């Protein structure tokens, strides 16, 4: 009896450790990428406070979408229409701001409402008409994009109000930035330290991982504090992204709703028997995705200061790639918010580094595809080795 229990504990700990190793490897690969491009391929333009700040802003839109996508993927759903939804939200924003001279606050409320509404439509068709989410959102890829072109009459309006422009183009003052980062980073570092020094009996590999995790958390905190303090402060979009990450991570790991998402994806039948309402949860997850897309749309619209109806054609695929690189399973049940964040960071880093090195965007597309294949291949090999043993 005792032996069986020990084995189960060992296996589940090993599984958790495997995921941790994967995440740490991904993080180190990203840092290695930065170093390689900084020292070899560019004249040291990657590891400057300015570029790292720019990079953090460049990853926000895709990362927010990828986070919403992660929850959908865990629950065995998918959203291919994310780019089209964002385009329609952005078009509506500029119609309001430029054509109808509406204030920023109302614009934001309407933008959010549009996103949630489209999410509810997608979710309802999925649940009520029982159309697979792949098909529903594939259709959305077309009809929502078409609607964006119709509403804007194909025109791009530009020049939002100053208050709207500030959303993506202002910074938290350096003093506040460093205080905030030290506060949040310090909290996570303290948690990681407690975990490392805990007196439980652990596998040796778990101990090593604990120390590595502590190293990464402390390193990122110090790095972020320095970078944002030296350049111009924490950019607002990154602050918004931080709030989204912390909120969704907390929901994922510490609330019933979060556990239900994993249950839904891991074993829908069992979830239903336990009393989880799959229909309500699915519609809710799509509505949440719509809200995240609206938020990403607001940030993108403010960054570009223009509303082209054709924007974000490949955005949904990029968000899905980021989630999968970060460890989310395409088949449901597995995924983590931090994993997705690191996946998004990796993808944004590839784009940023290649651009700084003067390499064509076409190579970026090849690189992203290769990274995706490599990470999934490694995942698959590790899983199959485990099964054989």
């Amino acid at each position, binding site marked *: 009896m005792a032996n069986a229990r020990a084995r189960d504990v060992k296996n589940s700990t090993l599984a958790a450790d495997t995921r941790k190793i994967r995440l740490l490897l991904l993080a180190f690969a990203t840092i290695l990428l930065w170093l390689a491009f900084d020292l070899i391929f560019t004249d040291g333009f990657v590891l400057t406070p300015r570029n790292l700040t720019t990079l953090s802003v460049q990853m926000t839109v895709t990362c927010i979408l990828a986070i919403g996508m992660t929850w959908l993927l865990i629950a065995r759903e998918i959203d291919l229409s994310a780019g089209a939804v964002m385009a329609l939200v952005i078009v509506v924003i500029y119609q309001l701001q430029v054509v109808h001279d509406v204030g920023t606050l109302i614009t934001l409320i309407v933008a959010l409402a549009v996103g949630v509404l489209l999410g509810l439509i997608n979710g309802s068709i999925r649940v009520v008409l029982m159309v697979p989410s792949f098909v529903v959102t594939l259709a959305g890829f077309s009809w929502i994009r078409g609607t964006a072109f119709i509403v804007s009459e194909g025109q791009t*309006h530009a020049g939002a109000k100053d208050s709207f422009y500030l959303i993506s183009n202002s910074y938290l003052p350096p003093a506040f930035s460093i205080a905030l980062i030290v506060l949040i980073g310090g909290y996570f570092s303290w948690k990681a330290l407690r975990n490392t020094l805990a007196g439980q009996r652990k596998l040796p590999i778990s101990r090593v991982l604990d120390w590595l995790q502590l190293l990464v958390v402390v390193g990122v905190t110090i790095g972020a504090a320095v970078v944002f303090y030296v350049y111009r402060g924490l950019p607002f979009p990154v602050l918004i992204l931080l709030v989204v990450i912390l909120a969704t991570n907390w929901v994922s790991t510490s609330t019933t709703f979060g556990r239900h998402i994993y249950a839904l994806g891991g074993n829908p039948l069992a979830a239903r028997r336990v009393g989880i309402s799959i229909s309500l949860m699915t519609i809710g997850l799509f509505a949440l995705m719509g809200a995240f897309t609206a938020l990403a749309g607001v940030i993108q619209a403010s*960054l570009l200061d223009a509303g082209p109806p054709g924007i974000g054609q490949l955005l949904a695929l990029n968000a899905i790639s980021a989630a999968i690189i970060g460890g989310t399973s395409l088949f449901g049940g597995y995924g983590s918010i931090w994993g997705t964040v690191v996946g998004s960071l990796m993808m944004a880093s590839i784009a940023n580094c290649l651009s*700084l090195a003067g390499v064509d965007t076409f190579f970026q597309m090849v690189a992203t595809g290769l990274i995706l294949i490599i990470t999934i291949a490694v995942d698959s090999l590790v899983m199959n080795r485990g099964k054989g043993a």
Partner: protein
Amino acid sequence: MKPTTLATSRRDFLKIGGGAVAAATLGLPALAQGKTGRIGFAMSTFSVPRFKHLDLPFFEEAVRAAGMETVAVQANFDANQQLNDVDNLLAQGIDALAIIAVNAGAGKNMVRKALRDGVPVVAYNNAIPSSDLSAFVSRDNRGVGASAAKGADAAVGLEGNWVIASGQAGDAVADEMTAGYYDVLKPLIDAGKVNVVSHEFHDGWDPESARKQAENALSANNDNIRGFLCNDDGTAGGCIAALEQAGLAGKAFVSGQDATTVACRLIAEGKMTFSTFTRFDVMGRTAGELCAKLAKGEAINPPMTYSSGDVTVPLQPIEAFHVSRDNLVEYLDQYSPAYVDAETIFKDLPADSLPAGAEKFLK
């Protein structure tokens, strides 16, 4: 004993390595900025032949001649990618920036960002409605339109029934060029000498759409159309296809723009009268020179102005001329094989119909 020595040397190695990395990362950007000046060129695409073969090489050459280097990137027609490109170029410490705006409205914010870093901006080929521009380098589209109408007058005389096939509505080139036609035609229309029987804008500059317009115009006027003024070679080709079907190819006047390989062949066959070509190599060189001057802090003086939206920007116009049978060989001498393919143009044409001097391309 041995393990201890190994351990120490590994630690030392790490210390030295770490120190080198730190010094390198902190020191390199400073070193780089001490180098020659850099001009950024944020292009919309590398795929369109003229940008790759004419605009970019001549831009780079002009910048090199001024003792600086060019950093060129392309956005694959994606406005957000171009925004990232501009951010990344600015992060590399460029001294001047030329932008081929994927989206005119989105270009405004990019110009604003560059100016905040003290980097002057030149709009290239595509207008950006921003009052912060130092210059807009492009052909004078309205002038080109007027010159095409005048060329029509010289070729066949401006009277009778005419058809105008414009490009995409809202595209600066189409709007301006069409306005140029009317600058010349309006007094003649008022005097009753000229009758524009059909005028349409074609989304995406679609040649098939232009073909339908020409077909309908011919049907509605009993084939009695004196000429077709077209905003580009694609729409001109569509009109010629309709004329072929009616058996009138070569009998009506047709003009286009860009002097592509296909258009040059139609000119050699006598089906197109002329096509306006803008010297993209001169455009590249001029923009490169302007950017180099701006980077050095010198003043520039664009001779004209251009209205983009509700903003007036200083315009540096680039020469455009008509490519017709008379100067086709001369044009090909300069621009084949870089931009057009002379062999394809003259292939399989009857020897007695070749313009003088064309034989050398058929070796």
